[in-house]
């Protein structure tokens, strides 16, 4: 067990934490924007799978990673548009919409994948590579952990202050937060509730699609159904654990990712404790956090409640 505290292992755990964190953070921060606008989008998992699938097809067809990433974002935005139409325009129950879309996308992407590969070998692509930030990457320990990651990891971390600024320092952000607390106030001012909810969910789902694209292009060499392996659900838990605050969500995702990274490394050292316990840690942590924070929640008052004039 003491091997866990060796320098090389610590560096590997911390670097792995940032990699594992990236797709979940994109999805969680995106979903935060959506939920702040009053839409409880349960379709995060499905949106990630769609982003992963579309980016896979574009990457294999175009051999262009930027195009693949962009298409992953766009596919997420289209998913957001659909969810927005269902929840904001048709005012369908938010949970049913999200869960239904997850099931639909799971089957649909698999069906498209079958058509795409036509029974042959699935086409391949060259994945995202690490980018070492000059000078900083050569700093001992810190350089390897923080400054030798994939570019999207830096963007994911940057998205936290950017979204925080957007939500708390801009008029649009204020309006979006108001939608989650009291959409009538927006309506009385003569502003469109639906338009703002659409914008929020399209931005949020675009980020979730980006998370799916990262999972595909940064972690895998092939598309598979259930590629996301529950990461979309973890993003939702992170929002609740993070009390609907950007820095809280970031901290929650970081904790989950760290625990998973530890679980990954525990197997590789000669630990006496069964490694399965460590695999359960992120989920145990989320349950414990939910219990501890149940009275201190900042959950938007009108979250998941369809707005009727």
């Amino acid at each position, binding site marked *: 067990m003491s091997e866990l505290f060796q320098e*090389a*292992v610590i*560096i*590997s*755990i911390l*670097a*792995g934490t940032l*990699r*594992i964190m990236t*797709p979940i953070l994109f999805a969680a921060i995106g979903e935060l924007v959506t939920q702040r606008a009053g839409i409880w989008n349960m379709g995060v998992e499905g949106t990630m799978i769609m982003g992963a699938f579309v980016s896979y097809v574009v990457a294999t067809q175009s051999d262009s990673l930027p195009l693949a990433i962009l298409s992953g974002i766009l596919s997420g935005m289209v998913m957001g548009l659909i969810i927005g139409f269902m929840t904001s325009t048709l005012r369908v129950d938010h949970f049913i919409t999200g869960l239904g879309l997850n099931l639909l996308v799971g089957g649909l992407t*698999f069906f498209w994948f*079958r058509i795409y*590969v036509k*029974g042959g*070998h*699935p086409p*391949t692509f*060259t*994945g995202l*590579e*690490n980018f070492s930030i000059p000078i900083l990457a050569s700093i001992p320990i810190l350089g390897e952990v923080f400054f030798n990651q994939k570019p999207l990891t830096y963007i994911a971390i940057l998205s936290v202050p950017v979204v925080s600024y957007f939500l708390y320092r801009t008029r649009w952000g204020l309006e979006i937060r108001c939608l989650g607390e009291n959409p009538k106030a927006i309506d009385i001012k003569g502003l469109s509730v639906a338009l703002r909810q659409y914008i929020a969910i399209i931005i949020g789902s675009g980020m979730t699609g980006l998370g799916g694209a990262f*999972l595909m292009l*940064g*972690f*895998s*060499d*092939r598309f*598979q*159904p*259930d*590629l996301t*392996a529950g*990461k979309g659900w973890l993003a939702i838990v992170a929002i609740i654990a993070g009390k609907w605050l950007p820095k809280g969500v970031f901290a929650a995702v970081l904790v989950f990712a760290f625990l*998973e*990274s530890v679980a*990954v*490394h525990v*197997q*590789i*050292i*000669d630990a006496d404790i069964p*490694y*399965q316990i460590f*695999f359960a840690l992120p989920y145990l942590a989320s349950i414990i956090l939910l219990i501890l924070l149940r009275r201190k929640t900042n959950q938007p008052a009108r979250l998941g409640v369809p707005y009727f004039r």
Partner: protein
Amino acid sequence: MIKIKEFFKLIVLGSVVTFVLGLMHILHAANTKDVNIAIILCCGVESPWDATMVESMERVKQAKPHGLNITYEYTEPIYGDAVMDAMTLFAESGDYDIIICHMTCSDMVQRINKDYPDVAFVSVGSGNSSKGGNEYWIYKRVHEAAYALGVLAGHMTESGVLGVVGTFPADDVNDEINAYFAGARTVKPDLIQKVSFIESWYDPGKAAEMTSAQISMGADMIFTLASNFAACEENNLLCFGNFADESHYSPSTHLSAPIAIWDRDITRIIDGWFDYKENGVPQNGNTEMMWTSMKDGGAVVAPFHGLADRIPANIRKIFDNTVNDIMSGDLVVELDVSEPKSD
């Protein structure tokens, strides 16, 4: 005179009965010119586990055992209760003679197989059992091929640290991981082994992380059973795949793989079913696990393709000799199914 008449009557009657029985036999035999097989897949036809079964089925179809015209179809990946539903639907339709459930599902088979005595039910892999009759059990071990690759890895590793990323620590997963390390230890007895299980049949994120983690802890060759070569490519390391030749995913890193060949196993099932249909011999499925050795065509080692030049000639010779020894029976690879751990 009357007795002679009756005698002739008996002869005529006997001839008619013999003729009718002969005709029935011919007609019966005509029915066993075709066999229709359903395969219920667990993981999808792209996965090495399922892909190799379908490939083997295609080869057996071409080989036409007993002159049978084999037709087959396979499902999309399904699991849980859906497997039971699919199995029942296939059996109930009356269109299928053999139903292969390519996963752990013998408990489901045992709930319905007696209702369809003309159908042969097959479960595949670890976690199964069999009560015989029209219930068969196919097992697959590729540990001998893994051993040979371990010998190769033992020679080629520079760090002396070998990594394996597994799926679940199951009997038919542990066997090949242990054999791989055993092969490597014949070359480097002080070898350090690193083992991780993703605890899933597919989780590319975890598989990539575990590969990266093993590499960061010194492993310079990875045997990945988790079907993801992204981390191998990123670190420009040679890696082994598993069960199928997946070199097309990563031609620059996929050195080889133990490959599962199911032809003999499928033929064994067809033989049992055919004997029942053609000769009325009761189906007698195996109650103990049965697997086909490398010598008998149960497994092979994948070709090195474009990476053959990366293997020094002397090491290649040792590797070839190891394979030859296994094939000739001179080398018996010990079966060890205990859960492998990291050093």
